[in-house]
């Protein structure tokens, strides 16, 4: 028996939220990476927060109306969105202070760096909180998904860092770090896919969504994120082995890596695991009943 039913369901969180997550995640982790590496030029420190600001802009466009922004801030404990708005805003404000001090060349702005470093973590983590908070969606509320989301964010940040470090010849250690993160990512992803296959057996009700994920449109995105990580790893290895091509290979690797990060975000957000509106057994029952025409006479 073949069944077909296509409810028109709205995509709760779409490409804009994915973009916000990408920008905020890689921006904040770029800052972290740079701070930890301790090298580089002051100007580079400005890049990460600028990305977070872009993320904030995307988030605001997603809110739909200005009043929602204030409403979110007012409900600061309430949701991913409120937190996103607040953290991103605070992050941006500190950054602005940094920029003005830098421009005026007054005072010691290292303490500000430290504060910004500390604030990088909430910005990095709030997307994960969104996923974990929604208890109805099993794919989201999974330790693996959270870990991967976080790892991807770090990978994006360090890739960017690697690319930027070329400009300032600040050494290879960031490229090394990026390569290492990608290795971890690939291992995790591998396990994750096995885990999903497991889940498919465990949660029968989410089967069709999983099927779509593993064999349908979701799979393409998952593959993209997987191959993004692999290809960019290869690029980094090449860059480290053959120094002259680094100028080409590292930015290329970073770009591919970021594309992979975005695909993963999109995939996770797209595949909310909703239980079907009507179970297959019930639909069959209804179809049978209607064949027998048990309607109310008029």
């Amino acid at each position, binding site marked *: *028996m*073949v*069944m*077909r*039913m*296509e*409810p*028109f*369901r*709205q995509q*709760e*969180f779409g490409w804009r939220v994915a973009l916000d997550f990408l920008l905020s995640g890689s921006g904040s982790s770029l800052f972290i990476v740079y701070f930890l590496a301790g090298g580089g030029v002051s100007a580079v420190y400005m890049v990460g927060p600028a990305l977070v600001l872009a993320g904030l802009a995307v988030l605001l466009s*997603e*809110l*739909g*109306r200005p*009043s*929602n922004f204030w*409403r*979110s801030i007012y*409900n600061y404990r*309430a*949701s*991913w*969105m*409120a937190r996103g708005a607040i953290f991103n805003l605070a992050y941006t404000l500190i950054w602005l202070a940094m920029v003005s001090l830098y421009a005026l060349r007054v005072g010691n702005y290292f303490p500000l760096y430290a504060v910004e470093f500390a604030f990088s973590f909430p910005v990095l983590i709030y997307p994960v909180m969104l996923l974990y*908070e*929604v208890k*109805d*969606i099993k794919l989201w509320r999974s330790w693996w998904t959270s870990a991967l989301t976080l790892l991807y964010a770090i990978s994006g940040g360090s890739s960017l860092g690697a690319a930027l470090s070329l400009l300032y010849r600040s050494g290879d250690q960031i490229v090394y770090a990026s390569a290492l993160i990608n290795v971890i990512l690939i291992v995790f992803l591998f396990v994750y896919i096995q885990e999903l296959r497991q889940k498919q057996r465990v949660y029968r009700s989410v089967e069709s969504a999983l099927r779509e994920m593993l064999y349908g449109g979701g799979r393409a995105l998952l593959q993209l994120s997987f191959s993004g990580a692999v290809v960019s790893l290869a690029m980094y290895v090449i860059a480290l082995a053959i120094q002259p091509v680094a100028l080409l290979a590292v930015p290329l690797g970073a770009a591919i890596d970021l594309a992979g990060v975005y695909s993963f975000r999109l995939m996770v957000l797209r595949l*909310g695991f*909703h*239980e079907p*509106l*009507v179970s297959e057994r*019930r*639909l*069959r029952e*209804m*179809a*049978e*009943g*209607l*064949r027998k*025409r*048990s*309607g*109310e006479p*008029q």
Partner: protein
Amino acid sequence: MKYAMVIDLTKCVGCNACTAACKIDNSTGFGVKYGQVLEVEAGRFPDVTKFYLPILCMHCENPECLKVCPTGATFRTKEGVVLIDRDRCMGCRYCVVACPYMARYFYNDLKRPLGVPRMDLEDERLGTVEKCDFCIDRVREGDLPACVKACPYEARTFGDADDPNSRVHGLMARAKPLKEDEGFNPSVYYIW
């Protein structure tokens, strides 16, 4: 008092008069359907059964959407109707995810096909979540919900389920809701 709706699937032919009436009456934006009609098909050619399944907010007695709402914008009235206070909603969409009946819509997209103008109240709804309100304003004035009024086949019946003399009460005896054993206790019932 508890408002309820019974939809007779033996009469629904999927004409979408209800969807259009709902869209006009609630002036919803493009892509937002408080009510919609799904097409269900079972079997293999040429032995196919097909039927139409109108869905809307089920006005659960035990609503998931209300539980997750962080701002308290979603609330349930004494009439058994689940409503959203647009001025308190901040558009976080937890409820959209949580609703087991796919009844909720977040509205922030103005995309429409070429040549289709804006003819609704999009502005004031931008950035909030909206859904079917059982046409409560009409009902309080003594009218029927727009979709019930529009259905040419009288497939939809609306009324007070607690009133033993109401037609809807009588029909509910032989009707069943969707996902009836998951404890949401919805107010929309189906006859098949």
